[in-house]
């Protein structure tokens, strides 16, 4: 079931939580709402669910599920599944009763027979691999298991759309990884339309077909994870999607200077701020004709696919972060306190007045 939001805005008292928003989510899509806290992402999700109502004035918004206008439909009749960050399981009911709840509260004429309910609940419990815990109480389960129960419970009523509010936010990193993969698989298997909220960019990029980046009640960009990462529309999106190194300085005659640092850039004269991802910083023993950026290594973290190196210099307000291949790391014999030269492979620049972001690639 596709979801279409038209002109959805929300005020809490006098503060604007959402500016008028339009959003189309296709059938079968898994969409992540990504943003820092206070960006309005949870509010938007709750409006889709019907747990909050959008502003009626100045212009009433509209929410469509497929062709069905659900703007004024109560949450219980919207046919949604909602998964809460803190599971919101019914603590006095067994796992089985929790999952069966949505089926047992159906009006009598739509309610499946008790045998069918039983079969369906066990099928769902099997899907979330918890059939052996059917008689336990939620308090006897781990966080990850509880969240799986909560997912099974939401799916039991066969909702048109599945909405998840920071579903993995309360779990530890390892469990979060597992559940993410598992949700992705489940989504591919059952092919429901789902929207989830997260503040974790990695989670959003890994899980979503498309990501909606939000800040201050506004949608900043809607794109596939790939496009979003490769060509962010503005500075906020760029900074939010990963670690960023800043280089501030004055450009004159095509050279940006900042203290004893120099970089050849193809930009008009004036104050500039360039942004670089950690993997866009190359380290070498020598400066080059194009760049002279002396740095000192202050910290090294060799864990993972790449070595993370922290760099400091007099001309830097905030330390830089660079990721280096293990081979290069060994070849340069990096150690703390060592002085090296940074070479940007590529940099980004977002000027308020500039419509299009400018990127300059450089042979590294």
């Amino acid at each position, binding site marked *: 079931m596709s979801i279409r939001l038209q002109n959805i805005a929300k005020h809490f008292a006098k503060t604007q939580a959402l500016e008028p928003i339009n959003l189309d989510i296709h059938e079968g899509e898994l969409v992540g709402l990504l943003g820092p806290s206070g960006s309005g992402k949870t509010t938007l999700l709750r409006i889709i*669910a019907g747990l909050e109502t959008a502003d009626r004035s100045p212009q009433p918004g509209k929410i469509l599920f497929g062709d069905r206008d659900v703007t004024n439909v109560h949450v*219980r009749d919207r046919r949604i599944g909602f998964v809460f960050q803190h599971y919101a399981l019914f603590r*006095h009911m067994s796992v089985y009763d929790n999952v069966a709840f949505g089926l047992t509260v159906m009006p009598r004429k739509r309610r499946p027979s008790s045998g069918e309910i039983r079969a369906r609940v066990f099928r769902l419990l099997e899907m979330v691999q918890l059939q052996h815990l059917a008689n336990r*109480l939620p308090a006897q389960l781990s966080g990850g298991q509880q969240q799986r129960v909560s997912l099974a419970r939401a799916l039991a009523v066969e909702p048109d759309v599945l909405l998840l509010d920071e579903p993995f936010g309360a779990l530890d990193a390892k469990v979060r990884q597992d559940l993410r993969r598992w949700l992705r698989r489940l989504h591919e298997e059952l092919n429901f339309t789902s929207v989830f909220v997260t503040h974790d960019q990695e989670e959003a990029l890994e899980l979503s077909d498309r990501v909606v980046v939000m800040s201050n009640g506004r949608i900043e960009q809607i794109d596939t994870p790939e496009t979003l990462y490769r060509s962010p529309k503005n500075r906020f999106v760029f900074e939010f999607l990963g670690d960023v190194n800043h280089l501030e300085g004055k450009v004159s005659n095509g050279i940006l200077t900042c203290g004893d640092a120099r970089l050849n850039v193809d930009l008009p004269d004036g104050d500039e701020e360039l942004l670089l991802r950690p993997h866009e910083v190359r380290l070498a023993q020598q400066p080059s004709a194009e760049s002279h950026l002396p740095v000192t290594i202050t910290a090294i973290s060799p864990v993972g696919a790449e070595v993370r190196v922290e760099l400091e210099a007099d001309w830097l307000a905030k330390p830089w972060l660079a990721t280096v291949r293990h081979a290069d790391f060994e070849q340069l014999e990096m150690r703390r306190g060592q002085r090296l030269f940074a070479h940007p492979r590529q940099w980004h620049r977002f000027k308020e007045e500039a419509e299009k972001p400018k990127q300059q690639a450089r042979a590294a």
Partner: protein
Amino acid sequence: MSQLAIWRSGSARVLPGFGLSMGISVLFISLVLLLPITGLFGQLAGLSFAEYWAIITEGRVVASYMVTIGAAAVAALVNAVFGLLLAWVLVRYEFPGKRLLDALMDLPFALPTAVAGITLATLYAGSGWMGSLLEPLGFQVAYTWVGIALAMAFTSIPFVVRTVQPVLEDLPAEVDEAAMSLGATDGVAFRRVIMPHLWPALVTGTGLAFVRSLGEFGAIIFIAGNMPYETEITALMIFVKLQEYDYAGASAIASVVLFVSLALLLAINIWQGRFVRRLHGGKG
């Protein structure tokens, strides 16, 4: 010797001051609670069982049990309903004056019960504000058991509100939202999701309110009218005996109230303990 050493090391406490604080607590409980109760039983020792039985089953006293228990039961049930509602309003909604209403809940605890009694009596007497409105309609509140129940309800409402309130605060709104998102109507969500969480606290609060009402004196006697066999409460019977210098008789009746109250409190505690264990997964 070595056994002693083991015992000592085994019971080493990190938190200091156990001996002193426990000692003072026991002393305090003994002086304030146990000593008067012992005194009560001391008075009883002067009676034979036959005499004791005769006192506590005397017609006028038995009538007072009926009045007290009946009125206390009505008061407790009324408080169960309205106390739950008040707690719900105080926890789930934001409105101007919420803090004030919350503070008002404790007023029956703070107000001298006699003040409450006199106020209620003047308000509901035939010439009072409420009484002059109600009596033409045929409702007589003052000097009937309705007045007694009203006074009891007034003094015991905080028990229900203050026991239900924290449990309700502990129950996140998400739980009702989850129930609604699964298609439950408000009624079903309340009955199947919210009530199972609340009713242990509600029963406890109502039980406490009931026990409190059994012993209430000051708030009731002014509005009760105190007609023998009609509107005399048990606490008044004790008072009457005392005025006649019949200490043994007073103690006998008091012991009945004491036993009933203690038994109820014990039952509530045991039952609540069981429920809490279940809710926390039968482990803790």
